[in-house]
């Protein structure tokens, strides 16, 4: 890989991460159907971008986990005001996906299954953290039916739509 290309990727990866971080919040506010009671589907495009990096094997080319922590902290500060939860959720879910990646093949469907596992880890961490500070008085059944299922469905569809565009972008940049 040419030096300038590497530097270019170093910049573009976090910039897209930042844009998606903001788009997540905007989509949650503007797409009314996502959070229409009782359904609570949350856009996780930031997380999907982190997944693409693992799926296409570029996480070793960049300070990947530094970005994960930085955006986790930013997520906590900007969206909740309570520090810790999403930093751990992002970190744990990406570590799990990174470790499991060698057991999956190159097909898109295998990739999406890996993403689903990551999403479940992410949501579980937020559920446990919510129990810890008394934010979560939702039963586990409602949590799965109204939150995990619609969230996973929405984000898997988004990840499938942008899978090949993201793949070609990574190919061009790295």
């Amino acid at each position, binding site marked *: 890989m040419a030096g300038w290309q590497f530097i270019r990727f170093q910049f573009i990866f976090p910039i897209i991460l930042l844009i998606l971080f903001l788009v997540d919040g*905007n989509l949650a506010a503007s797409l009314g159907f996502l959070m229409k009671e009782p359904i609570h589907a949350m856009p996780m495009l930031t997380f999907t971008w982190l997944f693409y990096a693992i799926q296409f094997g570029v996480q070793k080319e960049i300070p990947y986990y530094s970005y994960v922590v930085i955006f986790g902290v930013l997520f906590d500060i900007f969206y*909740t005001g309570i520090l810790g939860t999403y930093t751990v959720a992002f970190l744990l879910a990406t570590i799990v996906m990174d470790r499991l990646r060698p057991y999956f093949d190159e097909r898109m469907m295998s990739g999406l299954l890996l993403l689903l596992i990551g999403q479940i880890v992410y949501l579980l961490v937020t559920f446990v953290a919510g129990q810890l500070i008394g934010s979560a008085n939702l039963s586990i059944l409602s949590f799965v039916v109204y939150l995990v299922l619609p969230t996973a469905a929405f984000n898997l569809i988004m990840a499938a739509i942008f899978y090949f565009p993201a793949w070609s972008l990574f190919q061009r940049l790295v």
Partner: protein
Amino acid sequence: MRKIFSSRTIVLLMIGFLVVVGLIAGSNWWSKKTNNPPFFQRVVNDLTGGAAKVISIPTNAVGTRANSLANLLNTFSENKALKAKVDGYAQNKVKLQTVEEENQSLKKQLDLKKSLTDYETLSAVTTSRSPTTWNSQLVIDKGAKSGVKKGMAVLGDSGIIGLVTEVNTVNSKVTLISDTSEDTNRIAITVKGGSGDTNGIVTDYDADKKMLVMSSIANSANVNKGDTVVTSGLGGLVPSGLLVGKISEVTSDSYGLSKKIYIEPSSDLSKIATVLVAKSSMES
């Protein structure tokens, strides 16, 4: 025996766990205690909020189109129902104007300048909504600079949708009434019953039923299904008379000593593109 983790890793994991739990619990406690977030958090919030405002222009446009397309599908039946309602509203509006004028002149006679029902509104645009599991929060584009204060009520298209919980310089965070945290939605409310009012506070939000809960009501209180619930204006910065919702269920607590009511919020929490911040004229 093969060790899964080295001793060093175990110690690091334990310390890490304690630090994270401490951070979550500590910052949760701190955000409830203070009126303004710490300086660093405030700067990050202001900067990110500015960027979010720029990003929100195209996404809001897409969102509006998607929502109008969805609305188009049930326009016909909705239009029919609304037409029937409009006539009644015109009459009510005239009545309201007359009563308001009368109220003004009576206040003048009593030399009463401001009362709990007086409030000004400040309109704000929602730049983002937290894409998170709990903590249903909005970020709005008005902050301390526009006079927003922690604890102010925020109104949606039909009634109260939440309270301001964090104020930064140019934006602030609104915690929605659907937030399930223990003490975020303690709003002082009044049940407008057929025979007299009943005062109390919202004690909880039932996330399974999607309804606000008011408990510990005396058994003698006359509260019925269908009664309107409004804010009482007692304590805090929330003015009186903002619509909260309607009673959908009246039950008794587990010992049968008091009543518990479930209130269906009047405003649609999925339509929050623009909101109004109610600035009470009687600040306590």
